[in-house]
């Protein structure tokens, strides 16, 4: 899987979180989103997320990417936490 595909998966997980909140129709705590959306996802690095982000406002994926919560926008936005090797453009 190329890096861009990993970015796409990361955004899809973010979309799933937004969908969950939208369907709930109420204010949803980060811990609930963690429990219902992020934790069941095979993409998520549980151990690292629980270790480095006990409030679940930063979700680490097994890929070099993750999602961080922006309280001002009530949105989960991708970030990169690991190295990527773009010396070979085919990796993209």
């Amino acid at each position, binding site marked *: 899987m*190329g*890096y*861009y595909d*990993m*970015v796409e998966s*990361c*955004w899809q997980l973010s979309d799933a979180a937004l969908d969950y909140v939208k369907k709930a129709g109420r204010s949803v705590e980060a811990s609930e989103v963690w429990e219902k959306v992020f934790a069941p996802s095979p993409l998520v690095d549980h151990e690292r997320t629980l270790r480095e982000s006990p409030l679940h406002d930063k979700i680490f994926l097994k890929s070099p*990417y993750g999602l961080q919560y922006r309280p001002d*926008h009530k*949105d989960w*936005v*991708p*970030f*990169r936490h690991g190295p*990527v*090797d*773009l*010396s070979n*453009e085919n*990796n*993209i």
Partner: protein
Amino acid sequence: MKTISERLATALADHRDGHIDRAADAYRQMLKADPNNVDALHLLGLTELQAGRTDQAVALMARAVQLAPWMVEARLNLANALSQRGDRDNALAMWRSVLALDPSNTAAWHALGAASAGHGGAGRAGAIRALRRAARLEPTRAEIHHDLGLLLRQDDQNEEAIACQRQALSLQPGMLSAWMSLGNALLEKGEVLEAETALKRAICLAPHRPEIWFNLGNLHYRNANLEMALTCYRRSAALGLAAARARVVATLVDLRRDGEAEVALVAYLPLDGTDVSTCLEYLYLLLVRGDRQSEARSLFSRLETVPMAGRLYPVECRTALSALDLADGDPAKAVARLENLRSDNCWMFTVRSLAALERTRRQQGWHWHRPSNHDPTRPRLTSTTLGNRGRFAHNVLEYVLLRLYAQQRGCILETPDWVGGAYFELDDPVPSGPLPPWPFGRRILNGFVTGHYQGEAPVDRDALSPLFLYDYPLALRDRVRSWLRPRRQWAPWIDPPVNALRAVGKTIVAIHIRRGDFLQYGYPITETQSYVDWLRRLWPTLDKPVLYLASDDIPGVRAAFREFRPVTLHDAGPAWPGLEFLQDFHVLTQADIVGISAASGFSQLAARLNKNAVLCVEPDLATGGIKPFVGWV
């Protein structure tokens, strides 16, 4: 002695202050000392880009990215340079590489979204997704909402498109293009007054911009306020928008001010950028309307060799001559005149096809008389563009929408001579007189047919290029199918290929692969491999299958299907000269399994009319596979 970083900082400050040449000199000096200084390579590349020298910019920035693959800014600027150079594919790849480094890079999502939509919906879903992400990342950037609104409108999501433009304007009230796009979207929705206000606001902001006058002209034209439309189009043309010239001529023709239209044509035809093709159609119309056929013959014969707006227009000129032949009762001559021409020109398609059908009719010796409107007291509807804008399936699908609307609105549908009208058992009356234009009617026509539109539903109008139904409800299927039955007289030409297939197999699998102008205009292309893979799985399950291939590029696609021993029209029966597309179409309407070409109205229509098919499929552009096609929902 300054350090490298101090020299870079000084140069960068010059660069930011607009002293581009001084900054570029400094970057060059730095590169003399260190040819691999990635910052200097990147920034010198940027100065080259700013100077419009994209090749040099690409070379410098590509070197910087090669040496420092992690440089997000260099990749972004390189992508922009590639895009400006017209190298779209590499630009898209470079923006994706930025996102691999920085998945929340708004500029990259924005650029990716703005650049990745092609014609015919290719890439549009991905482009919309990218722009939605950009909008989420930076909800306060007006340009992103504006660009998203443009794509949503193209995707027929007009309500959301309007909301996006309003959002852009709430963030940047002076955003000219958002006012213009809002006006256009509101006009499409039928909110004419609001649309006019938005467009006038745009004009107040920039009265010198010809495209706004053009759009305001469209609004007045849509309202049948032809004098106002003419004023706006003339202003737009005077301000330099070449596209407005044909609209000036069209409006003068609609106003029956033929002398002025002719004067405008004489002025516009030599000018670069004029839509000569359309203007020549108006010239033909004016001459025929003025009963000046012999003058038309000599003029179009002469114009064949006269460059207009920088080139020759032999197809249009010969089409005019062919149309004159046809009107004179000599369809064989009309067909012969266009026989060896290859062109996507819709007018030529119509004239050639009508001439070929008329030639067949005469050879068969039956009479065909189109009726006149039997009840002039009833309201009317027509669409003159059925005869010159779009080709077969495009016009048939437009006809379906118009006829449904006319039935529901209680008016008589009058049609010009058009290919579907001659091919199918249709009996609509000929136009009994000109009607005011009604462009951009798709949304209202659809809304009225489906019962979702409660506003004013026009009648006594000429619905120009109305386009199609948005959805094809099952409830309409039998009614539409009952209209679109081929005339029985064409059976000797359209039945033999189907019979030949039935003679060699029990299950006809007909696949359509569209190439032609789809390649040229960047429409979605159906990969033969997708169908081959799908057939390999399906074939062993079928009872004595036979594969029929319909394509405008049989030599290019046939080999891919070799293992299924495909049959083409060439093998299956005598060709109907000039009307082979109708034979292909008929096979597609009779096959047991139909494979549609991506985004092709031709095979979609055939599948919708097919009563025999147990399965219809189409390419799944997202996965590269094949998925079921549901024609009526």
